[in-house]
């Protein structure tokens, strides 16, 4: 379809909008103009992406009454350029989420100097952190897409990752069941798609087998009413930030450097090839730049001269429940109702997640799904919380909520992953639009990027060489709460710091906090300690342990207490000393 016709079609479908379209040789459709509102802007993007001949959509529409905040890249770039070249590397990875950390860990096996630059103060601070931790089997993704291929492949590779990196992976399995025969068609459709996608072990089962696989179904009386069930044994559960941390730590052990609080404000391109990035902290030169910038991947790609897609934020609110609220099922088990099916059909990209649990045993509700204009807007609303909570069963009560928060998924309009060496700028690799099931796909994404970069290196006469000293193994640090009493006793005797409980709710010891502070990718804020140790993650939300964690951090890091932050620069917990105390400590 030609640009003119596309524009005509879209203007017809959206009479309130006035838009123009431009289609380049690659099939990148750029839409400009104005439309009625944010919702319509997203709808137009989606509609455009479905038109024949459109590879992806750059949506530059403005929406009436909506201002889309932009980062002040010019100022950050000026700051970085003034600082000059601070590092020279073979590969720069932009973004330390699950994709960036996965790529870093995979490439760390080569004799390359690798630097990961991250805008936030820690790994996993974007979409990764606010993810429900499901390692999806790959049955829910449209067949034939890159997403489907990498989802299934990634799911399979997780066992190896979990073994080598020693993070908690629970292959709990998932079951969808129906209690009305006509709805069985929905399950059969999913089954066929799962088969096409190559999902391992998928089966359609009857009530008896369903109750065998999920004993909770017999207990709650739903089991005998089951007409058909879809069993997906490969569904897994992880703590997503733990996976990213494990990857980052293993990468760091193998020499990868992490540069935090370093927003990329420019990509250096020389003679059509990438030559590095300008971060707010200074210039890092490199032969390859891998763009794993999540919500900002489109902006980074544009900086590299390759404007090929637009990312918008799809916000999801997640609620974590008290461990006292025990999950009803051992597997991730969901009754598919007519409402569910309709929701899935109407909002194929945006229905969000349901009820599951974390590997530590908290029930997790959500996420919800709402397209928003501001990528940095991680606020929660009562409506989204309700959406997240509303998808559980009757046993779920608001009184059990211990924490709720939002995360933004980086969605493009094609709703598929974008993983390729840029056809515009040589050496610049896009890893864009990695949202659900990006966590499940991560190992496959990392491998794919490894392939792209090493092939390019080989073709350009500088083949990658494996490091002789590469160590793929990373061990988890002691987790006091999971040990037997005898093991705990032995651990304390070895190091008394494990005998002091700092976080009473999650049973986290001072020893574990010290271990985290001395780990290969050390935490710089109270929340970063929380993600590594669980201190403050329990029902009192740090009311008890935050002052204690803060004190340990100040002592260990040699900072004043007024310099310890909750979550990075500008989030100091304590502003100043009491009246009459000297300034400082």
């Amino acid at each position: 379809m030609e640009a003119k016709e596309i524009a005509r079609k879209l203007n017809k479908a959206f009479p309130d909008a006035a838009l123009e379209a431009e289609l380049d040789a690659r099939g990148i459709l750029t839409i400009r103009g104005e439309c009625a509102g944010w919702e319509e802007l997203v709808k137009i993007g989606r509609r455009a992406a479905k038109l024949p001949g459109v590879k992806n959509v750059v949506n530059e529409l403005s929406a009436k009454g909506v201002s889309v905040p932009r980062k002040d890249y010019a100022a950050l770039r000026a700051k970085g350029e003034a600082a000059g070249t601070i590092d020279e590397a073979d590969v720069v990875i932009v973004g330390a989420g699950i994709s960036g950390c996965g790529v870093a860990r995979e490439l760390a096996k080569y004799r390359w100097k690798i630097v990961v630059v991250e805008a936030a103060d820690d790994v996993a601070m974007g979409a990764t952190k606010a993810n429900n931790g499901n390692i999806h089997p790959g049955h829910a993704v449209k067949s034939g897409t890159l997403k489907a291929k990498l989802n299934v492949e990634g799911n399979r590779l997780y066992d190896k990752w979990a073994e080598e990196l020693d993070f908690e992976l629970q292959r709990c399995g998932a079951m969808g069941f129906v209690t009305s025969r006509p709805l069985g068609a929905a399950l059969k459709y999913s089954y066929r798609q799962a088969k096409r996608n190559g999902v391992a072990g998928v089966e359609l089962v009857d009530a008896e087998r369903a109750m065998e696989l999920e004993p909770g179904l017999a207990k709650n009386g739903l089991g005998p009413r089951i007409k058909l069930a879809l069993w997906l044994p490969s569904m897994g559960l992880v703590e997503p930030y733990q996976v990213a941390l494990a990857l980052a730590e293993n990468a760091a052990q193998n020499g990868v450097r992490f540069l935090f609080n370093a927003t990329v404000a420019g990509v250096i391109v020389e003679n059509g090839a990438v030559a590095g990035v300008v971060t707010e902290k200074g210039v890092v030169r490199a032969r390859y730049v891998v763009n794993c910038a999540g919500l900002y991947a489109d902006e980074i790609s544009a900086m590299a001269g390759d404007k090929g897609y637009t990312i918008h934020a799809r916000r999801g609110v997640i609620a974590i429940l008290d461990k006292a609220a025990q999950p009803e099922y051992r597997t991730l088990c969901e009754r598919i109702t007519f409402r569910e099916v309709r929701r899935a059909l109407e909002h194929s990209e945006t229905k969000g997640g349901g009820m599951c649990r974390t590997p530590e045993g908290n029930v997790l509700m959500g996420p919800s799904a709402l397209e928003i204009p501001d990528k940095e807007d991680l606020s929660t609303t009562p409506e989204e919380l309700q959406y997240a909570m509303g998808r559980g069963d009757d046993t779920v009560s608001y009184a059990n909520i211990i924490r709720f928060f939002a995360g933004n998924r980086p969605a493009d309009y094609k709703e598929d992953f974008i993983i390729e060496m840029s056809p515009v700028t040589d050496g610049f690799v896009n890893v864009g639009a990695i949202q659900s099931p990006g966590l499940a796909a991560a190992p496959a994404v990392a491998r794919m990027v490894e392939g792209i970069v090493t092939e390019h290196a080989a073709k350009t006469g500088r083949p990658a060489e494996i490091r002789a000293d590469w160590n793929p193994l990373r061990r988890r640090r002691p987790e006091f709460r999971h040990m037997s009493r005898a093991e705990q006793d032995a651990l304390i005797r070895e190091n008394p710091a494990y005998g002091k409980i700092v976080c009473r709710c999650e049973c986290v010891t001072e020893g574990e906090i010290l271990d985290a502070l001395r780990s290969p990718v050390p935490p710089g804020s109270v929340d970063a300690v929380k993600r590594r140790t669980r201190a403050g993650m329990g029902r009192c939300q740090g009311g008890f342990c935050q002052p204690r964690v803060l004190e340990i951090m100040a002592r260990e890091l040699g900072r004043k207490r007024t310099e310890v932050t909750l979550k990075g620069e500008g989030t100091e917990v304590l502003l100043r000393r009491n009246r009459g105390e000297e300034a400082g400590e």
Partner: protein
Amino acid sequence: MKRVSVDVAVVGAGPAGLAAALEARRSGAKRVLLIERDAELGGILQQCIHDGFGLHRFGRRMSGNQYAQAFIDEVEASGVEVRLGTMALEVTGARVIYACSKSEGMLEIEAGAVILAMGCRERTANQVLICGDRPAGVLTAGAVQRYVNMEGYLPGSRAVILGSGDIGLIMARRMTLEGIEVKAVYEVMPAPGGLTRNIVQCLDEFNIPLHLSTTVTRVNGRKRVESVAVARVDKNLKPIPGTEETVGCDLLVLAVGLIPENELSRGAGVALDPRTKGPVLDDVFMTSVPGVFACGNVAVVFDLVDYVSQSGEIAARGAVDFIAGGLCRQPQYVPVEAGENVNFVVPQRLRHGCAGARLFLRVKKPLREAVLTCESGGRMLMQKSLRHLAPPEMIAFDLAGRIGDAPVAVSIREVTRE
């Protein structure tokens, strides 16, 4: 693993645990062990530097520290074995406690009787479903109290307080004196949660406004709190659209209630009362698990520390009786029913034939004049006139006389005069 065997083990050395340990010794228990996770005794009282404690017990107005010190000095002279820096990780139904410390590693403590005195924790912003951003500067009143009073640091410059319970009011004054501007206190309920005295002395005196039937609906600020949205609420406590206002501040202090900390109790198999969120107790404050007792704020959130100490002493006497074999291991109980205007009564049940008990209750609504009655099987056990009752203030009284096998109903009838 080090094994220790004691007569009475007390978990937690706040006011309840201190009183319980002391009373257990006084009542003749030989080996009384008091375990405390902190490095010192006293619990949360050590951050309560304000006065108003101990009027009932000591007849004078003491600060929380002074009240604690009085008990600490006695405990230190009493022969109670104290283990500081020791965290109880598990209590079993067979009265075995697993606790750890830096110096001793894991301890397995076998106790003739266990007294739970872990206190309570604060409800958080998440639990009251405040939406919006999640920046630095959202803290519970207790955390602010610790930072300001014990560590000497200020977590903000301009504060908004949600919740008019006594902790919120006390912190309003304390923050003001330390130079933090307290913009206002908001209370979702139509009546204040704290004592009139505290409203007068902590708010009025510093011109801090108290807004009733108003709540914080949203926090704004990506890094640090910049403002909060407040809105008036309707009868169902739901925000009324169109009443929202924005209040600039860099600190939101939450004083939105306390929850008994019963995770260890649950692990021991102790039955909990959904209303008090504490264990179901009998007249000697024994839980549903024989030999496991509970007192203080882990049993029910008290308003006065004097009552907390009393409850510790009741539990201690029960515990000593239990190890001496004076208590029936499987007692027959009669329930104590919360009747008209009564929100709950602790203890929730009494042993057949026991010779009375001390009861603690809260009313459902403010009552100017009322009559408290306890009836059992058509028999009036007691009757008492009371004035100026309000939900924040607990009513404590002794029910004398032998308890039969009929339920005891406790009611408070309003007396209306023209």
